């Protein structure tokens, strides 16, 4: 409602109709407005009711999923040091994630209701099941790795990877399959942003403690993921057009800038001096921080987009003009 209490008059709005203004006798066609109107600047859609747990959930879910893939690959390819770290990362992810989700619920005591149904139309439902399944597979995989460090991998690891990959990107599906314009219109690119960010965080986590001679894949992954994340983000913002302002302004903008700086700095550090342990660890931390900031940026952008009625209205008016409606 900001800006409208400043208006000189209450409910001030304009439209066109005929001379005497009598609804009954008017004949002229109403001319559509050039500029879309709003109802006192009130949002058309509701902003999310989610709490700070959620962007962290995005982060940990991504970490869990990408690490599970990484752990599985490392296990199959006989890279035990990386495998161990990756399994730990995945395990940390799948234990933190549900805790954060439950905490965010309006009624946490009813968290089990998330598994009451399996609803194909609901990314949140599928995601809950995915998290549960992956949690199981990851725990098993981690346990096996703990028990048998030289294990070369089998079904459990395949399962963990197969479930982990979608786990890393489904949260993008979750937020893009909503009415929030800046999310919904970004649905083509967001999963790639999230996937890359997840991979970067998995790499970063592993790099915190692995010795440089074992770290090469993680280093390569970290640099590549950071670059891909940035590229996907640029493409996403470009395609969003005016909606990109939700990501570039306010808190979302500040988190976004931080994410870019941190991730690219991390990538640069790894590329330049990643063979040194301290630099690798620092680079990994930067990647982790960058990934957290990126999730926060996207999270905040959702609020900013929902709260701006013009984002909703303009997007739909353009769609009507171009396609005659989204039906």
């Amino acid at each position: 409602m900001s800006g409208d209490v400043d208006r000189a008059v209450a409910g001030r709005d304009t439209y066109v109709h005929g001379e005497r203004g009598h609804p009954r006798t008017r004949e002229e066609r109403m001319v559509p407005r050039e500029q879309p109107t709003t109802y006192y600047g009130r949002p058309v859609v509701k902003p999310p009711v989610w709490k700070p747990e959620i962007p962290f959930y995005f982060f940990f879910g991504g970490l869990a999923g990408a690490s599970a893939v990484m752990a599985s690959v490392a296990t199959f390819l006989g890279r035990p040091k990386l495998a161990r770290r990756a399994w730990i990362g995945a395990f940390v992810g799948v234990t933190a994630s549900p805790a954060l989700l439950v905490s965010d619920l309006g009624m946490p005591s009813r968290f089990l209701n998330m598994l009451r149904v399996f609803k194909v139309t609901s990314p949140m439902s599928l995601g809950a099941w995915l998290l549960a399944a992956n949690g199981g597979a990851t725990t098993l995989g981690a346990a096996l790795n703990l028990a048998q460090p030289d294990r070369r991998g089998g079904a459990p690891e395949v399962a963990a990877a197969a479930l982990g990959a979608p786990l890393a990107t489904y949260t993008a599906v979750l937020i893009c399959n909503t009415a929030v314009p800046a999310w919904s219109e970004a649905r083509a690119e967001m999963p790639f942003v999230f996937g890359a960010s997840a991979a970067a965080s998995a790499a970063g986590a592993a790099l915190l403690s692995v010795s440089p001679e074992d770290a090469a894949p993680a280093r390569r992954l970290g640099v590549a993921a950071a670059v891909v994340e940035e590229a996907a983000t640029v493409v996403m913002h470009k395609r969003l057009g005016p909606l990109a302002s939700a990501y570039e302004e306010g808190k979302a903008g500040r988190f976004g800038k931080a994410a870019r700086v941190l991730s690219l700095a991390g990538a640069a550090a790894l590329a330049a001096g990643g063979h040194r342990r301290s630099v690798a660890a620092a680079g990994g931390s930067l990647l982790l921080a960058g990934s957290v900031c990126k999730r926060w940026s996207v999270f905040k952008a959702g609020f900013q987009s929902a709260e701006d009625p013009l984002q909703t209205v303009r997007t739909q008016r353009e769609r009507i003009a171009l396609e005659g409606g989204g039906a």
Partner: protein
Amino acid sequence: MGTSFGRGGATTFQQDLQNSDCIVIMGSNMAECHPVGFQWVIEARERGAKVIHVDPRFTRTSAMADLHVPLRAGSDIAFLGGIVNYILENGREFRPYVQAYTNARTIVSDDFRDTEDLEGVFSGLDRVGKKYERESWQYKGMEVGASAGEREHGEAEGEQAHGAHGGELHHGEPPEEDETLRDPRCVFQLLKRHYSRYTPEMVERICGVPRETFLEVAEALCENSGRERTSAFCYAVGWTQHTVGVQYIRTAAIVQLLLGNIGRPGGGIMALRGHASIQGSTDIPTLFNILPGYLPMPHAHERTSLDLYVDRNAPPTGFWGNTRAYMVSLLKAWWRGAATAENDFCFDYLPRIDKDHSHYRTVADMADNKLEGYFVMGENPAVGSANSKLQRLALANLKWLVVRDFNEIETASFWHDSPEIESGELRSEEIGTEVFLMPAAAHSEKDGSFTNTQRLLQWHHKAVEPKEDQRSELWFMYHLGRRIKEKLAESEDPRDRPILDLTWDYPTVGPDQEPSAEAVLKEINGYDADGEPLPDYLPLKDDGSTSCGCWIYAGCFADGVNQTARRKPGGEQSWVAPEWAWAWPMNRRIIYNRASADPDGEPWSERKRYVWWDAEEEEWTGEDVPDFSPEKRPDYIPPEDAKAQDALRGDEPFIMQGDGRAWLYAPNGIVDGPFPTHYEPQESPFSNPLYPQQANPVREQYQRRDNPYNPTGDEPGADVFPFVMTTYRLTEHHTAGAMTRTLPYLAELQPEMFCEISPELARERGLRHGEWATIVSSRAAIEARVMVTERVKPLTVDGRTVHQVGLPYHWGNRGMAKGDSANDLFPFALDPNVHIQEVKAATCDIVPGRRPRGPERLDLVESYRERAR
């Protein structure tokens, strides 16, 4: 309306509006304040009617109207008078109707002088006594008998004063008439002359309504009246709450009579009364000067008796000719066995009034320390009455105060929580008033009836028991009376007999001993000589054999059945729905409906048939109960010795009037002029452009230090208060807010006091939307949030721009939705006929910012008074 037509009450019912071809809503914000009734206006609109809303603001009613006409608050008589002028100048009156059914042809006394002759006043003005002597207003050739000087008139005019007080008419006809309507002294020509200067240009000058817009309204009414079409007016307190309020309605009555709309479907004047049972509160009155059924309260004359009373008040013709029967039956209802022919049926038990005992007079006396005790039941004068500050200060002078309500309203809490406590004008420890707060039961917790704006009595059944100490009004009054009777039981003092002899034996029910409301209704309905419930008021006798608590209500318990509790759904009966509840008189829904047929008894047109003469059955018939003697032929001429209603002809529809006709010109029944005249309100930024006489010469003023008036017109200092202010209601709240500011679901809909002003005024005074403003008059300063809106327009009046400040009046300092009270700003200035306060037009100043707190608030007001001196 009583003066013009014979009964004080809406002439039609809201459902009938669907039949209108044009509806003018003026002095009312109907959609806002009568939302359920307003559906019938929408129905009319859907059927093609033109809906016009005349109001200083564009409101929720205007949003549904075809045309909104902004006008200056307080200028309605000029507007309506302009319509009268338009009709007469252009010959648009419905001639046959006017000729036959109104007193247009009656010749007026040679002594009568109009405002055109006397610079804005009528003949007979006693400026010192502030009243009119009405001898010169009478019809020519009327005997001004001995009874005239002793009539129950002046201060005792009931609000619904029926016409023809003391008019001695032979055969119901005045002695001199001109059927051609050309005699310069006939009412028709006098009317024309009186309004000759109310031209469209004058309307524009006085009201701020552009000429074209005014003409559009006038033309819409004219083209939608006549044989084939009818128009209706809807009004409410936007008209009555003026020092010329009664005259506002009279002007509308004249318009509707000239256009031939009274008594016809889709026509009439829909007086919109707001409170659920406010009509009932005048029918079974809570007013000091009338008795049930609008019988006048007897006055303290030197000589007094039942016969003298009847002589003074009952005309020989029309249904009021039966005054004696109504009065005796009332006395029998009240004192039953003790009332006998020998003692004038206990006529002397009735108190006599010796002066004005109306609300504002009483409060003024209270402020002067002349009152000990006060009962306030279901009202909140500390917020709802004009000069609410004085109301609160006066309460502090009482010895005791009883407040009955749902919670501790402002009237009950004044002694510890009021603006005067905040300012220091009152200190709790110095207030000697003992306040009794008695919890009241709500309407769903008791049996009883409401009588609504269309004279409809509807029963409501108790749905749940009241809790704890909550009790109904009926319980309270009954047991209070019972206890007083018990206390006086041993008394030998004749002064106590009226109380001891009162009929007070109503059956009681339940652990709380709740009196039977139906028993009371039965008493109101009345009994015949055999103790059977009366079918209507026709069998009422003056010999003591019948009893009736309110003659106009006789029939509400006909056949021993509670007619008011009937609930036959509308879909199962005609659109008039006569079997839903019961309307007075005699379940007639449109009164004066004889006028829907021509003098021969034929409907004026097929399209507008309502009641007509069935020559075969030899009776009147139609969609409604005929408001006429059922078997009186249209060509009936009364014999020489005919009395009461039999003295009226078969073509005289206004059966309550002495001459059976509706009154364009009111020789009686009104104290401030036979023709409505535009006067400025008590406080106005303008001099009266029409006459040297600024305001109503006989309006009631209270010249007191605690009721100072702003300078007005061209008085020096008038420009200190340059803006017109007006009060009104919002849909979300009810009256003084006691019932709504305390309910969360309603309080949240309109939580704070606000004022409505135009963008131009905002700019002029530096007021900002959404922030605060302080509004000041000579009485007080209040604060309100600012709503800047184009729904309020500046108007051009008398050559200059005038701004209006709109103030909803619901707020007080208690409850969930709190705010300052608009009524603090207004003075006591009343209509002299009915003592209703002028709160629809006065003057003020408005400045940005919140008002001062504590004693500084008084300083601010004082600074204004200084400047205005």
